[in-house]
């Protein structure tokens, strides 16, 4: 049985549906990437699962952790999962820490909640965690405030906080997006080392396909509130089957690809209030036919090459850009 199992998860804000039924399993120790452009629902999926959306959000479907249902569970049941079984780190580390509390105290809060540590024991453990995530002279920096840390170090503090509850799953929501290139590399390195050492599972939410490919075992691509393709990293990148996935890959410039003109996806992401009928990607898709404009394709197995939600997937034989420039 998978550790986390998401079934038909739907979310609506003020009557506008933004998530249209997500099915996703996360196994123990597995690293899964969630890829897509802003507004596609990749963060909302996990905020909804953990009950972190504002009250006006309407959530339905099922999310089970170790068989325990989270959707509709009492606040106490969900609080017992947050931070302990599933921890989460966020995009903008500097504002994700409380500015008026000392950094050490914020880590100790997790230790008190999840491991019952207080006082000197908590302090010692917090310093150990700060060491593990690579904060230099943790002993003295324990008593500093978040504004005295750089963005990269704030992200390390958040990771230390996440580790404090010894979670089985870490949700990393765009953890490197707000950071500089060399610091991004440090954080990616740290996250994959920690995963190797602790064996925790990870969901890596990002629009940076390169980053996803380096830390994840498999990935799901989302578009307009649905998963449209899911596969092992190597297969997904070598032979994307959904035209959107392919278009996304082709739109990204590559460092070793010279000044070739970028191929692009025409048009823009649809407004969730006025989604087209049928496949949401059809209006931008060169392969779309009448079927696509009338019916929503199901996410299903495509001849042993992962899951794709497309009536006219790209044939497996066609070369992707990845191979052209390899």
């Amino acid at each position: 049985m998978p550790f986390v199992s998401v079934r038909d998860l739907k979310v609506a804000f003020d009557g506008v549906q933004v998530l249209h039924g997500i099915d996703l399993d996360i196994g123990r120790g597995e690293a899964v990437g969630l890829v897509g452009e802003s507004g596609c629902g990749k963060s909302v999926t996990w905020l909804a699962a953990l009950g972190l959306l504002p009250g006006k959000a309407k959530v339905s479907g099922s999310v089970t952790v170790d068989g325990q249902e989270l959707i509709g569970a009492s606040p106490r049941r969900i609080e017992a999962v947050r931070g302990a079984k599933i921890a989460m780190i966020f995009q903008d580390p500097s504002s994700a820490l409380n500015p008026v509390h000392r950094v050490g105290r914020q880590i100790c809060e997790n230790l008190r909640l999840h491991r019952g540590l207080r006082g000197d024991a908590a302090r010692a453990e917090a310093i150990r965690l700060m060491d593990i995530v690579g904060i230099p002279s943790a002993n003295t920096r324990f008593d500093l405030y978040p504004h005295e840390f750089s963005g990269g170090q704030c992200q390390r503090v958040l990771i230390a906080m996440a580790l404090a509850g010894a979670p089985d799953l870490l949700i990393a929501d765009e953890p490197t997006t707000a950071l500089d290139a060399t610091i991004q590399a440090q954080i990616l390195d740290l996250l994959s080392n920690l995963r190797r050492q602790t064996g925790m599972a990870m969901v890596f939410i990002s629009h940076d396909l390169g980053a996803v490919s380096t830390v994840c075992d498999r990935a799901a691509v989302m578009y307009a509130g649905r998963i449209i393709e899911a596969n092992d990293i190597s297969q997904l990148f070598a032979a994307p089957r959904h035209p959107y996935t392919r278009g996304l890959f082709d739109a990204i410039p590559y460092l070793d690809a010279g000044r070739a003109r970028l191929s692009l996806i025409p048009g823009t992401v649809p407004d969730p209030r006025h989604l087209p009928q049928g496949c949401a990607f059809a209006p931008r898709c060169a392969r779309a036919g009448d079927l696509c404009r009338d019916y929503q394709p199901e996410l299903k197995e495509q001849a042993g090459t992962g899951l794709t939600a497309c009536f006219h997937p790209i044939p497996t034989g066609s070369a992707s850009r990845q191979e052209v420039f390899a």
Partner: protein
Amino acid sequence: MLKFTLAKLARALLTILLVMSFAFIVLRLSGDPAQIMLGPDAPQDAVDAFRARWGLDDPLWQQYLAYLKQIMTFDFGISMRDQSPAIDLVLDRIPATLALTIPALLLKIAIGIPAGIYAALHRESIADRGVIMFAIFGFTIPSFVLGLVLVLIFAVTLGWLPAGGQDGWEYAILPIATMSIGGIGIFARFTRSAMIEVLGQPYIRTAMAKGLPWREVVWKHALPNAAVPIVTLLGFMVGALIAGAVVVESIFSWPGIGRLIVVSVANRDLAVVQCILLVIAASMVMANLLVDFAYGVLDPRLRHGHAAH
């Protein structure tokens, strides 16, 4: 840190000096005290004697320098009307004013802040709408209207409370109510928006994602951050403890500073008006200093002598 404090103090003294100078000049340009004190029919020699007695014949700048010199020695002048030291008149009246403003302030805090927090935590509930409506009512209705309406209801119609004067605790109820209703609204509104802003911050989501119970998220993570804007408002209200009762004291014939200033301005009793303004300016400046100090306690980012990175 010490340097910073000294600089703050210097600025505070400068503010007081500016207020005093402004008051000094405006008062002297706005009417002749001799005419007003002695009446329009006073004989010329009486007027001349009065002017000579109070130094009103000297050029303005000489009067000003003399006044500054006086202030430096903590001599605040003699009331032209009572012939007694102005400062004594003022100090006599302060307790009466504080007897109204301090309970009113406590009420504003005790009711306004919790109401604002509750409204923010239950957004768009009936209670939230009620708080907003009360707040709008509270700070749109002028205190002289509110005071008179309260008098009409509780003193004239129902006869439960006295309409004016100062002769026991029941006399203070209507003035305090008049003063606090608007302030409760302001505090509630301010606290509500401060809390709503803070609750939308990423660190609140972090605190929830930790698994903290909602109550702890509110008390330990949201409130300390919302306190900064609330303290600004609180500072303003503390600064107005002495000056904030002019209208209400007049309505309820309450013998406080407010009444004294109205009477003294009408009589051009220069020393008394200047003395009151000095006390008011000093209390405002003190409140500001307290707020600055409180900022540093509440928010480490606003602490001075603390280099970022």
